[in-house]
């Protein structure tokens, strides 16, 4: 009786061990493929998806990988379907890239925005695929452009390559703050010194 109980506990422990071990292997492999072999062309890479509507069309945009890095290839997948009947857009789509800097395109404040064409894609299995490689980190805008009839469609999507700059506007604001506090402090000390001097002058 006692040895049976020990046996049962041993079997349970064995099951538990295999369950835990298989769980960790699942985390390492995605659908049987090692995670380190995933790239922008894999069928299940991590992605960032954005959905929107424009005119008569419903647009879904996916970036592979979710957080592209400089000098690493990535891909944009664009799905465009009509809102009314769900039919897939069949005209070619041009892809452009623009810098998305603070104040870019603003009159007087920023540089003019000049779009750079990165390719023209035809629909393939319901998807417009556009590859990209960015050499520098930064904030970009990917613009998809197509025309249906006489109507031009221009869809802008944000794309962050590498980490967003941590300084920039924040550094500017903090610098401004320090400058302000130091200036006010100096002016106030001067005012106090002047009033003390005036008082002493008046008393004598």
């Amino acid at each position: 009786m006692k040895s049976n109980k020990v046996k049962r506990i041993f079997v349970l422990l064995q099951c538990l061990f295999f369950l835990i071990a298989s769980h960790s292997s699942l985390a390492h492999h995605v659908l049987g493929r090692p995670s380190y072999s995933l790239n922008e062309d894999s069928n299940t890479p991590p992605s960032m998806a954005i959905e929107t509507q424009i005119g008569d069309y419903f647009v879904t945009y996916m970036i592979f990988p979710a957080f592209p890095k400089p000098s690493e290839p990535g891909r944009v997948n664009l799905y465009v379907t009509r809102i009314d009947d769900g039919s897939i857009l069949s005209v070619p789509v041009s892809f452009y890239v623009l810098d998305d800097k603070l104040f870019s395109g603003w009159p007087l404040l920023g540089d003019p925005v000049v779009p750079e064409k990165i390719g023209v894609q035809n629909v393939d299995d319901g998807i417009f695929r556009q590859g990209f490689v960015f050499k520098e980190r930064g904030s970009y805008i990917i613009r998809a452009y197509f025309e249906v009839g006489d109507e031009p469609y221009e869809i802008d999507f944000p794309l962050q390559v590498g980490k967003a700059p941590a300084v920039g506007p924040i550094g500017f604001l903090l610098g401004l703050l320090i400058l302000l506090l130091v200036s006010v402090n100096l002016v106030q000390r001067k005012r106090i010194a002047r009033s003390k001097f005036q008082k002493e002058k008046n008393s004598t």
Partner: protein
Amino acid sequence: MTMTHPGLPLFWVVIIVTAMLAIIIWALMTKAPVSYEKKELSLTKVPFIGGVFRYLSVQTLPLLILKVLVAFVFIVIVTAGLWGTPIVERNIATSITWNLWWAGIVVAILFSGSAWCAICPWDNIATCLVEHRLWRRSNSHTRLHLKVPVILRSVWPASLLFIGFTWLELGVGIVSSPYATAVLAVLMVVLATTCLALYEGKAFCRYMCPVGRTVGAYSQLSPVALRPIDLDVCRSCTSLECYHGSDLIAPCPTKLVMGRLQENTYCTACGNCSQSCPSKNIAWQLRSPSYEVMVSARPHTDEACFMLILFSLTVFHGFTMLDSWPDMMSAMARSFGDSGKLLISFSVGLVACIMVPSLIYGFFVLLSKKISVDATRTNYSHFFSGFSFSVLPLAFSYHMAHNFGHFFRERNNWSELITNPLGVGAQPLSMAEKHARHMDMMIPESVLFSLQGVFMLAGFFIAVQVVRYRGGRLFSMAGKKLLPMLTFVLLVTLFNVWMLVQPMTMRM
């Protein structure tokens, strides 16, 4: 796929509209109210909890702890915004700022009046930087104590900043960028610090802060406020510590005298008055939530315009979350040749949504003036500012009903956000997760609809009462003479109810 919240069911619409019509008929049939009995109760006199409120009124420590806590959360938000993941739902900066604070602050006003201003991190961090302390009188050399320029001495700066906030939130879409959220947070601290370093008192809080002015306007409807326990004590006071401060405690930052305070608009609940009062005569008070807007608040043109802008922007927020809004934007963009983020079309829509309700209000005020007995003696601007308090309960009730939808339906995974505030290694929400969050409400849907219905009705009733009391007291109007303003209140509420009935786009 865009996910939407279901709108208010028809059952509730029937109840609200029937009750509204009954209230309108009652208002038209009754005579002008002669007086209003003010009901108030100092929370220090309530059994069991009175001692707690007495302690809170005179001790600085609890408030100081809260200030430090909120400032700490603010610093976490800025850190997460700058260095955290750009995935909106996985970053604590966007989740706390837009899902919890922005939606919850209006609900908080109902229960705590203007108490948020006392713990506001923008002002507290600015105070720390400029005065080098958080509550006591300071002799810091980092303040110039200049007089606020006359051009800034109104709530117009706050109104413009509020419009700017809405433009950034809904037009530029900073709600979907943790980085932009952090930049905005730091920008507000810079503005508060600049005003504190240059001007006397707290000019930023009083004239410029869009959140503070919104809290101030809505807190006129709050059932709690800081007020004198015994008005006779204030009447016999000659030293006015609440205004001038004491040796240790700083003066009132917005220059209010407690004994003469008629409206809550500019009270930041900082507690300087309650801590400096030698008679310990200032404490939190329970009061009638409608007395101020009906009777005691004095009308000013800039505040009237702020209330109208607040009302318009509240409606605009709801309007942009309707299914038809993107189509309207697209149609407008086509006619302008606007592309990209459609900012021109959005800006035109924003201006139109501010102008249209204001012009409609102006038209009904003009009708009221035409039929009033005082038509020749009283200016149009008196009518305009006098009746403007009627839009406040309408804005507040719709704001609450709308925000309840966001607050109770759009759940964040707070345990995950607290343990990983920067969202390190997090992946975007899958559609399954989005659906799960959508379905997992904090309260039953029927309770949410009941709350929305009750708030819409309460807002309508208070607005009608404001029209009756203000019409009677300021312009000797009653019964049928109030028809134009009552029609305005009815139309606005019907429009707000219609918006609540529509499915609302989820923010996540």
